[in-house]
């Protein structure tokens, strides 16, 4: 096992061009004050199409900040963010939604509470597109949404016309996930999206997540605090510490990785 910040590119991805690159990215908070800190500190990351990367790191390591920089909620103060080789550093959050979708930890963040499940799905199906004065045509999509919702195995398909605010946390988060993946985004960012749920519901959503990513060949970064999930899912695992990637394994090497090894690695930090 070699813990390294260098890119350990394996054979099948070496010829591919990267989907996303972060080059020497730093973000500073409280600039020009005594509390000035670099949350991300010269971070480098290259993501290839089809990568499913699990992201580990202790609280405050900068995981959510990394997602904010990719998503455009926060600017990289130094370095560059590239999509297909082109800089997207200056693009707004709204502009980046044409290739990117996110699910947050808090189920309340991802859905419109007074709108129905079907209305939410319809809204998200137009991710990053122009929204004009054209009738929304909700009824035409109901069958499609029913099928989609039934893949979540939590009775969501029978609540399509319910206001999202009255769903259970698990249903609401499942909906957030469906809204993120239904337009098949080029890049999916999951920020501890199962952490707020009870163990069983959390497990259910995690399984559905993995199935969906595999079926649609989605490229995904998933922050999790569960070592088991980080090991079990995805083709690559990275660990963030103090704003840097301190560990990066993929492919066979990741498959060989054990919980103990990972745990010891954390102890050493």
């Amino acid at each position, binding site marked *: 096992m070699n813990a390294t910040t260098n890119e350990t590119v394996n054979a099948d991805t070496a010829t591919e061009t990267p989907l996303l690159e972060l080059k020497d990215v730093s973000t500073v908070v409280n600039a020009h004050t005594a509390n000035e800190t670099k949350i991300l500190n010269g971070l480098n990351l290259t993501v290839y199409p089809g990568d499913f990367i699990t992201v580990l790191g202790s609280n405050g390591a900068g995981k959510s900040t990394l997602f904010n920089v990719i*998503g455009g909620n926060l600017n990289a103060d130094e370095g560059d963010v590239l999509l297909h080789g082109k800089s997207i550093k200056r693009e707004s*959050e*709204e*502009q980046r*939604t*044409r290739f990117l*979708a*996110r699910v947050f930890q808090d189920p*309340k*963040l*991802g*859905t*419109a*509470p*007074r*709108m129905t499940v079907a*209305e939410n799905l*319809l*809204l*998200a199906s*137009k*991710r*990053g*597109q122009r*929204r*004009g*004065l*054209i*009738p*929304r045509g909700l009824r035409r999509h109901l069958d499609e949404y029913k099928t989609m919702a039934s893949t979540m195995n939590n009775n969501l398909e029978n609540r399509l016309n319910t206001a999202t605010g009255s769903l259970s946390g698990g249903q609401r988060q499942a909906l957030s996930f469906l*809204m993120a993946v239904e337009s098949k985004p080029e890049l999916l960012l999951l920020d501890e999206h199962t952490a707020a749920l009870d163990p069983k519901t959390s497990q259910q959503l995690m399984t559905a997540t993995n199935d969906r990513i595999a079926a649609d060949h989605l490229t995904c970064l998933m922050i999790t605090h569960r070592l088991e999930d980080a090991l079990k899912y995805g083709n690559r695992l990275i660990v963030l510490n103090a704003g840097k990637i301190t560990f990066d394994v993929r492919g066979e090497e990741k498959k060989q990785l054990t919980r103990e090894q990972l745990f010891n690695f954390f102890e050493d930090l």
Partner: protein
Amino acid sequence: MSLITSAIGQGLLWAVLGLGLFLTFRILDFPDMTVEGTFPLGAATAVALIYRGMNPLLATLCAFLVGMVAGLITGLLYTKGRIPILLAGILVMTAAYSVNLRIMGRANLSLLGKSSLFKNDFLASLPQYFDSVFVGLVVIIVVTLLLVFFLNTNLGQAFIATGDNPTMARSIGIKTDRMTIMGLMISNGMIAMGGALVAQNNGYADVNMGIGIIVIALASIIIGEVAFGDLSLTQRLVAVTLGSILYRFVLLIVLQLNFSANDLNLLSAIILAICLLLPRFRKFFHFDRLIERSVRDERNN
């Protein structure tokens, strides 16, 4: 009977304000004070234009456009300028007062001897007060249908989502600033049009006719909600109009109790306060639990 007809007519005309305010107060979820300025602005614009010989329908449409400009300014101050919405609205409302004086050239401008939307042969043939019922009904039906259409388009859904959860809206690519500005423009356009209608119905425009407008518009929204409860969005729009008419009935009853027209704003505020407090009262006195307990006690005894 004629009092009731008059109340219905007034309720219909003023319902345009409630529907306009609904877009900001209920959908975008913030109170927009601009309306206290845009209502007399619409009145002044329409009356001044008709006074100079413009066609009343065209003048009313001009009032709508001028109202949209006021909404645009509030929207820019709020979204791009990051000024809190209450303050942004108060700024534009205050500025509008001077603009209204400029437009009319004086504090009060009469339409005596001039044309208006309420002056034509057909309306004159109707019994007393039925002219405002007829015009109000036509306006409300057109406005409600347009709103229902708009809110059910992709753009309208993006607008609703912006008010419901702006974080989520942005995360699916909705330009929330643009939606907020658009909502403020349509809302203030409608309220200015309401001002134009009321002024033509009264036969004059007055710079002070905006005072307390927001309370009256809110009253029609809240009364509609208190009276009809849980509804779909389309039904809620209809409820605003019914709420506006109910509000006129309540006012009619109160005015029978020998209050003068000068007490109108006090009465409006009290009526709205009571409607807003109703749900609290229910909780405060624990009506539900009280009833439940008395039933249980009886059973135990």
